[in-house]
């Protein structure tokens, strides 16, 4: 039997705003197994962001259970959540969130600084390996302003990979990129997935979702549809089929 990375059962999240209670998630149940490439889709207001925050251990559910790699998140305090984010999750953001005026290598090293068990040499070694795996081996000492958007996002992916997470959590990771670069990033994601990485990709673009193996549609705080993609598109082929453009 395949290992469950995520196990969510009847997850609810409510926000109290003044005297009103907003129910953002109204009972969500699903699980994600190791090696899956899942996209979570939904229009704005569907609870997508709230779910993402909970999946990323930035927020805790009001009710229901969330097991991440066998750990019950609900029982953890602020610092323990931080530790969990550090060791089990690799974040990729829409706005890259790289430190300005800081080299790619130092940016990638960052999560390892918050892990006591890793020595300085190990940190550097892993950061270099991580950058190599996103094909940026030549640009260790470039600062974000010297990199293109796609390259910046790849640095961010390298940063997400460096702590060997059980899951990569991407939040609209292609939202700021043009189609070609988006496809490049998705090709990279598919490659990582083929190597066995579990990826959870939040997006609202259906053509991005087509690259994944499974899509969960959210609507009004509930799972509307949870389907396996029978014919997953290959990002590499999609890239090859794009019309020629000047920058190639």
């Amino acid at each position, binding site marked *: 039997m395949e290992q469950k990375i995520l196990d969510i059962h009847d997850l609810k999240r409510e926000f109290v705003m003044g005297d009103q209670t907003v129910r953002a998630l109204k009972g969500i149940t699903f699980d994600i197994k190791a090696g899956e490439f899942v996209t979570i889709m939904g229009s704005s207001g569907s609870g997508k962001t709230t779910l993402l925050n909970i999946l990323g251990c930035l927020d805790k559910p009001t009710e229901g259970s969330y097991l991440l790699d066998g750990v019950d998140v609900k029982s953890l305090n602020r*610092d323990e959540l*931080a530790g969990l984010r*550090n060791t089990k999750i690799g974040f990729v953001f829409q706005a890259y969130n790289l430190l300005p*005026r800081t080299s790619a290598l130092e940016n990638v090293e960052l999560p390892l600084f918050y892990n006591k068990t890793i020595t300085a040499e190990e940190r550097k070694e892993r950061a270099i390996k991580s950058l190599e795996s996103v094909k940026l081996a030549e640009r260790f000492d470039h600062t974000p302003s010297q990199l293109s958007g796609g390259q910046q996002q790849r640095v961010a992916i390298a940063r997400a990979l460096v702590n060997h997470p059980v899951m990569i959590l991407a939040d609209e990771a292609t939202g700021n990129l043009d189609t070609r670069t988006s496809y490049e990033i998705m090709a990279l994601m598919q490659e990582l997935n083929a190597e066995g990485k579990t990826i959870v990709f939040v997006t609202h673009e259906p053509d991005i979702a087509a690259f994944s193996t499974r899509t969960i549609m959210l609507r009004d705080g509930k799972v509307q549809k949870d389907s396996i993609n029978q014919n997953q598109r290959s990002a590499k082929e999609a890239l090859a089929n794009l019309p020629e453009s000047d920058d190639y």
Partner: protein
Amino acid sequence: MSIINLLKIAFRALKRNKLRAFLTMLGIIIGVAAVIAMMAIGEGSKQSIRSSLSGMGSNMITIMPQSNEPGGVRLQGSSIQTLKLEDITAIQKLQSKNINGLSPVVSTSGQAIKGGYNWPTTITGVSPDYLNIRQLKLQDGILFSENDVKSFAKVCLLGKTVIDNLFPDGSNPIGQIIRFKNIPFQVIGILEPKGQSNFGQDQDDIILAPFTTVQKRITATNYLQSIYASATTEASSAAATTEISDAIRESHRLTAAETDDFQVRTQAELISTISSTSSMLTVLLTAIAGISLFIGGIGIMNIMYVSVTERTREIGLRMSIGARGQDVLMQFLIEAVLISITGGIIGVILGVSSAYLISYFLNWPILISESSIVISFIVCAVTGVFFGYYPAKKASNLDPIDALRYE
């Protein structure tokens, strides 16, 4: 999270904003440099006042006559004739180990004449002890003896100013005869120049002669204008003062109800009065400098607050990749302390070197005490922690979700 990692993180964060870090530091640098330079100048002038006062004889005790009658016309001390030679004898009889020198003083001013030259000056009649009490030294010649005192010998010692005016041709005055108020005196010694006193008096405009000679041949009086004594050490001057006071009261036959008809003063009192004035000045200067250090601290706080707001997304990112609240708190605290301590080090160097520059170019006395360096350094570190804490606390309390989405 190890402290080395935290230091590295904070250091890298500062490196990203070198100019701003430096400008923030500038407040601290100027504050610390000002504190150190001001304290060096203040302490230096205090020290120089002390040493020039000691040059006048720091263990010196002066006994002056004073009226003890509250009614009637109050007379100036020098015209009161209560101090007599018997008082000296009474003090000598004590054989106190707190007193190691005693000399009467009888002085009068007049014209000193040598050949075609003359000079208005003062002749001071003293005993040989006087030179030790006033810390005067002979440059040439000999000192008059107790025998000269007993025999009313017409011998004298001259100060440099008197020599310059009576012997402008530079000839050796020793053995020559000068006249003071028509009395011939043989010059037997030359005093080492002492320069001006703290109060602007020329200490070299002086003729010293045996007090007996001055009393008998010039002033024709039998009272003393004052008595100079010296205590064995600065510490024993208080005890010596009491002993002298008691001895003179007894010799003047004063009853317990009567007040003193003389006053005893020590140089120590003068030193402490003047150094307290100078201490006040030091405190004042240091306080002003301290204010600039405080303002430097506020500068740190201001920049750290701006920095926390500006770097909200960075804080959110750090938290999302595993930084705990206390890691963020420590990072910002260490940044503040790094700024203040680096500023402190530069400030110490700048303060010390500007103190030396001041003493070199303006010839002001300076004294750099280790305590001023240590204190301003500690103040610096405390400033960093104190003013860095609140912004750091604010940063660590941010919610990573809000921080990440902060625009």
